[in-house]
């Protein structure tokens, strides 16, 4: 089994120990010498899977998460759904005591299932429970291939406890060779028609969702946008387009042609949804048309489209670029340059507006998020840095102030919007960044960290360098606002909106929490003038190869 796992190039296996996979556990650390994969000790299965989620977003390939039968898989289930909704390949192995005639009463029975995968089947792309070592080898390679073919998704292999303990068969087990398929590309006629619409458009806009799977995806989108001189809404789920590119943003006015690349739902990633009534011609290229499940409703509304291609957008871009080049006449190119200048002007104006907005509350205490992100940027901009946290709850200040142009500069969000993802995904992403020597930054929301803070210990134990800066607004803040609005609609006032939504009385001391797990911790910091020196001190630790945490008490958003 370990030989099969090694053949697939897994670097790490994240796990909270469980008896249903003790055979595999022992083989990894002894037979496999705890290398490729190295076992990572996790304090919660949700952390194991979310770490694998964050790792895959940086490294572009799956990491193993091994979970206990039933209980571990149920702990992991939310994180698996996040990865599923975020189209991220995560490879989960779950133990099982399959043979009811052999298993003991008590805990082993509680940790057994007739159909273990049923627990998460709605949120994995494929699962199997192989009955022999030969079947295991084939299922593992097949699962890897399925997970890594767009749309990328989690997969699950259920592994019988007794099979892990059986002696090796006399004849050698064949390990199938992994051959990744060429990814699905848009139909040539549809690509030609899409190019025709885009070249003729007066004001095209490109919306990119979970488009760029690799750094090449960013380059291709830049080439297409520059050819068309089209504005690009890069979305918030991946780095699809450089944030400071003159064509980045919503452009000028309403578009007449919209190109959606791996955009989920009816319109486009927020902001900038294009209502179907706008009359714009719409071209959708999405691998999600090739895979959909019925129960969980993450697929959202059926998008309107004049042209739809069931294809991987990144893989289709080279053909679309060539077709656009073929159709662009010199006269048309000149006209497009003028359009590009206007978009660039708008981009610059938006940047100025962002700077003005950043100044609001600059000296406020608690610390404004713009100030926090500005102070961070001043100390990391010359590093090879990576923001390993979502910016949805921090008013997107990194996207507005920082220069984001590499795939690892930002990893997007949870996928399904579930808390508990942030801290472990940051640790997993930082782990992937470690061998590249990148400086990982996690702007960590307080509500999220409290789901499973034990991952701070995992970061310490495995020497994963990561600067965690708390966005400590002492609330599940989005819900504060929702409850206020609900109370308003019912004419009851928002003076009790803090009940059940805030994390105060007592305030949580995150510096002490970090210290308890063995991490450098400092705070709480409420004075904005104290932020920069604290960042400097913490970064000294991180640059030496260890994790550190700063507890910054912040404005709500």
């Amino acid at each position, binding site marked *: 089994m370990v030989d099969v796992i090694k053949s697939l190039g897994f670097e790490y296996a994240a796990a909270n120990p469980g008896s249903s996979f003790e055979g595999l556990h022992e083989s990894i650390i002894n037979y496999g010498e705890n290398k490729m994969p190295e076992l990572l000790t996790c304090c919660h299965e949700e952390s194991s899977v979310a770490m694998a989620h964050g790792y895959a977003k940086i490294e572009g390939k799956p990491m193993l998460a091994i979970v206990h039968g039933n209980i571990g898989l149920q702990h992991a289930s939310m994180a698996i759904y996040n990865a599923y909704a975020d189209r991220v390949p995560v490879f989960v192995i779950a133990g099982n005591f399959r043979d009811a005639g052999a298993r003991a009463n008590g805990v082993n029975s509680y940790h057994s299932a007739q159909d273990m995968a049923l627990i998460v089947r709605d949120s994995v792309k494929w699962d199997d429970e192989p009955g022999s070592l030969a079947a295991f080898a084939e299922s593992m390679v097949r699962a890897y291939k399925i997970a890594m073919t767009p749309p990328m998704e989690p997969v699950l292999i259920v592994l019988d406890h007794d099979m892990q303990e059986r002696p090796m068969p006399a004849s050698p087990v064949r390990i199938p060779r992994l051959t990744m398929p060429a990814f699905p590309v848009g139909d040539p006629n549809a690509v030609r028609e899409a190019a025709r619409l885009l070249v003729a458009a007066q004001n095209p806009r490109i919306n990119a969702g979970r488009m760029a799977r690799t750094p090449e995806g960013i380059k291709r989108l830049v080439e297409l946008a520059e050819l068309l001189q089209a504005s690009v809404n890069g979305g918030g789920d991946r780095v699809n387009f450089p944030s*400071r590119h003159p064509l980045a943003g919503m452009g000028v006015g309403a578009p007449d042609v919209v190109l959606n690349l791996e955009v989920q739902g009816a319109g486009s990633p927020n902001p900038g949804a294009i209502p179907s009534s706008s009359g714009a011609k719409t071209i959708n290229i999405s691998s999600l048309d090739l895979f959909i499940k019925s129960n969980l409703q993450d697929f959202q509304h059926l998008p309107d489209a004049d042209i739809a291609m069931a294809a991987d957008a990144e893989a289709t871009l080279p053909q679309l670029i060539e077709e656009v080049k073929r159709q662009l006449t010199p006269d048309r190119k000149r006209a497009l340059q003028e359009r590009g200048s206007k978009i660039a002007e708008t981009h610059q104006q938006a*940047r*100025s507006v962002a*700077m*003005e*907005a*950043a*100044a*609001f*509350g*600059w*000296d*406020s*205490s*608690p610390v*404004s*998020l713009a100030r926090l992100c*500005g*102070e961070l*940027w*001043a100390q990391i*901009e010359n590093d090879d840095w990576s923001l390993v946290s979502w910016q949805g709850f921090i*008013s997107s200040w990194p996207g507005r*102030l920082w*220069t984001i142009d590499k795939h690892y500069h930002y990893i997007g969000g949870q996928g399904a919007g579930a808390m508990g993802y942030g801290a472990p995904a940051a640790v997993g992403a930082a782990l992937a960044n470690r061998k590249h020597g990148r400086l990982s930054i996690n702007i960590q929301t307080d509500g999220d960290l409290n789901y499973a803070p034990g991952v701070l210990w995992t970061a310490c134990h495995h020497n994963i360098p990561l600067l965690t800066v708390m966005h400590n607004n002492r*609330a599940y*803040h989005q819900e*504060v*606002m929702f409850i*206020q*609005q609900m*109370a*308003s*609609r019912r*004419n*009851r*006032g*928002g*003076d009790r*909106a*803090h009940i059940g939504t805030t994390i105060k009385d007592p305030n949580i001391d995150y510096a002490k929490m970090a210290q308890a797990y063995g991490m450098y911790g400092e705070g709480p910091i409420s004075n904005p003038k104290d932020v920069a020196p604290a960042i400097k001190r913490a970064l000294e630790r991180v640059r030496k190869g260890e994790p550190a945490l700063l507890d910054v008490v912040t*404005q*709500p*958003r």
Partner: protein
Amino acid sequence: MPRSLLLAVLVVSVCLSAAAAQTQPTSSGNLQAGKDLYLRYSCYACHGYDGHGGAGARLVPMRMTGERFTAYLRSPRTPQMPLYSTRLLTDAQLGDVWAYIKSLPASPDAKDIPLLARIMRGK
């Protein structure tokens, strides 16, 4: 009197004056009552503790008149902004909130913040 002591007395006097102003009713409202309501009704949740914005609009500097402010809270233009009927807050209470917001100091201009100016000039 040594200059340092004189300075200290002056500073204390100014602070006391400011504190007194915070609690005294003004022609438009009671600042302390307004602050209490601003916090109790979680206005800060969207507008920030100092009224400088966040998920909601920036309130400082307050450009609405007290009457306009009250009218807006009675009938907000966006669904995100909670409505405050007379059953919840009286006109006088909204006047206090308005007066408190009006008293909050403005932020510096971006061009006067060296770090932001440097970011703006950056690559």
